């Protein structure tokens, strides 16, 4: 579904991605783990076309979307994204946020409003919130609204950037379960980046570990506990001593 080959990304003189290669199969839920500043968010932004890599190739459904330093438009594939902080539009009401894509595509107001209510119900929010602004909601509710917005476009692929960051353990578990359910319901392929191992174990079919701009380990979630890779062992056990400084 998504194939990344030898991806490089620099910021001034700092090399953030140093030849990342990754293959994500259709219909699976993959999670990329890694410490802060290892390039997880940069990788996802490169796939989304929000950042331009210096080298490498990215293909989705066997069509190259990035090759020879340039992005190509592929309007057939819909991609949803749940941003770390939600990234809800402050100036718009909740229903306008959720139905933003439909509004931009000229759907009528009544349809957009009703569709927003349906999508909010799917993430466990009542219709009471539709006319509120994002600043009037709690962090957990904002994440749910952002999830409703991401699934409202019925995406083929959905990305989650640190979906549980900043949430209490119960809200985090609710979001994890919603992610599993909704991704299954819409039949999308998902890619999540997180450093929350509890979230990674709950959401994933397959886990990849990013360190120093490269994928240094990948495998099914069942095998991560038994790996002897010292980087993975240190990371998943949260040890201060080990090869990761």
């Amino acid at each position: 579904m998504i194939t990344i080959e030898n991806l490089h990304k620099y910021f001034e003189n700092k090399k953030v991605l140093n030849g990342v290669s990754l293959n994500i199969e259709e219909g699976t839920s993959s999670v990329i783990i890694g410490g802060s500043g290892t390039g997880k968010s940069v990788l996802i932004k490169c796939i989304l076309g929000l950042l331009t890599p210096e080298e490498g190739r990215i293909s989705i459904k066997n069509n190259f979307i990035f090759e020879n330093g340039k992005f190509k438009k592929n309007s057939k594939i819909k991609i949803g994204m749940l941003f770390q902080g939600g990234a809800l539009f402050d100036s718009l009401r909740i229903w306008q946020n959720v139905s933003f894509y439909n509004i931009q595509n000229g759907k009528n107001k009544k349809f957009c409003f009703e569709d927003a209510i349906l999508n909010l119900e799917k993430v466990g929010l009542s219709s009471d919130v539709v006319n509120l602004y994002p600043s009037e909601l709690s962090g957990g509710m904002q994440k749910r609204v952002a999830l409703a917005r991401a699934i409202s476009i019925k995406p083929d692929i959905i990305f989650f950037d640190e979906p549980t960051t900043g949430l209490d353990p119960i809200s985090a578990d609710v979001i994890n379960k919603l992610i599993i359910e909704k991704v299954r319901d819409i039949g999308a392929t998902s890619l999540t980046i997180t450093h929350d191992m509890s979230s990674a174990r709950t959401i994933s079919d397959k886990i990849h570990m990013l360190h120093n701009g490269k994928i240094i380990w990948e495998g099914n979630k069942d095998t991560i506990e038994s790996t002897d890779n010292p980087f993975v062992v240190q990371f998943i056990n949260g040890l201060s001593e080990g090869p990761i400084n």
Partner: protein
Amino acid sequence: MISITRNIGKVVILFLNNTGNFFIFFTKILQSFFKPWYFKNIINQMIFIGYFSLPVVSLTSFFTGGALALQIYYGGNQFNSEAIVSSIVALGITRELGPVLGGIVVAGRVSSAIAAELGTMKVTEQIDALKTLSADPISYLIVPRIISGIIMLPILIIFADIIGIMGGWFIGIQSLGFNGSVYIQNTIDFLEVNDISSGLIKASFFGFIITIMGCYQGFNSSGGAQGVGKATTNAVVSASVLILASNYIMTNLFFAS
């Protein structure tokens, strides 16, 4: 010596880098003018830039007109120039003070607000979210603001001109003992279409400067709250300086001959 050369080099590179980035940004905006327009956003921005700036622009031009009338009267009194107060107030307001002071006041209000809003959207990934939802941020956020600035500034300055002249009239009849209807008649007789239209053309260009500086600084801000604060300050300072510099150039173009 080496450190001085290095610092000068850094400043030159930074300047060239910013100039280059600005022209890339400007080119993208020009391209987006040929994409579909978001009319609802344009109306909202017109209300924000025009309607909500009206009180502050009106107050500024009223007091400026009054102060100008006093200055001309006290300065001109020595040479028996009382009679020319109304005409110089009208000329000064329509040609220079209306558009320039109005532009600077709107720069302080609007350019900073645009930079703060877009800067916050940038650092909270809302601009990235727009892209993932297939909306072009330049068409959605920037083009409506620039169109509104270009349209609304001249409209604001028409009000500023009228209120500025009325400020002079008010002080003239209240403090200086002028005849109100003679004052108005002198103003109408002296003013030419060119005086008003040159001010409105300037205002339109100032509207462009105010909005593009706010958008550019906000759109390119980084580094959280501190970055947004810096973008806001830079937007106001750069818009104000460009207004004053471009006013000099346009005055030369319109009136030098």
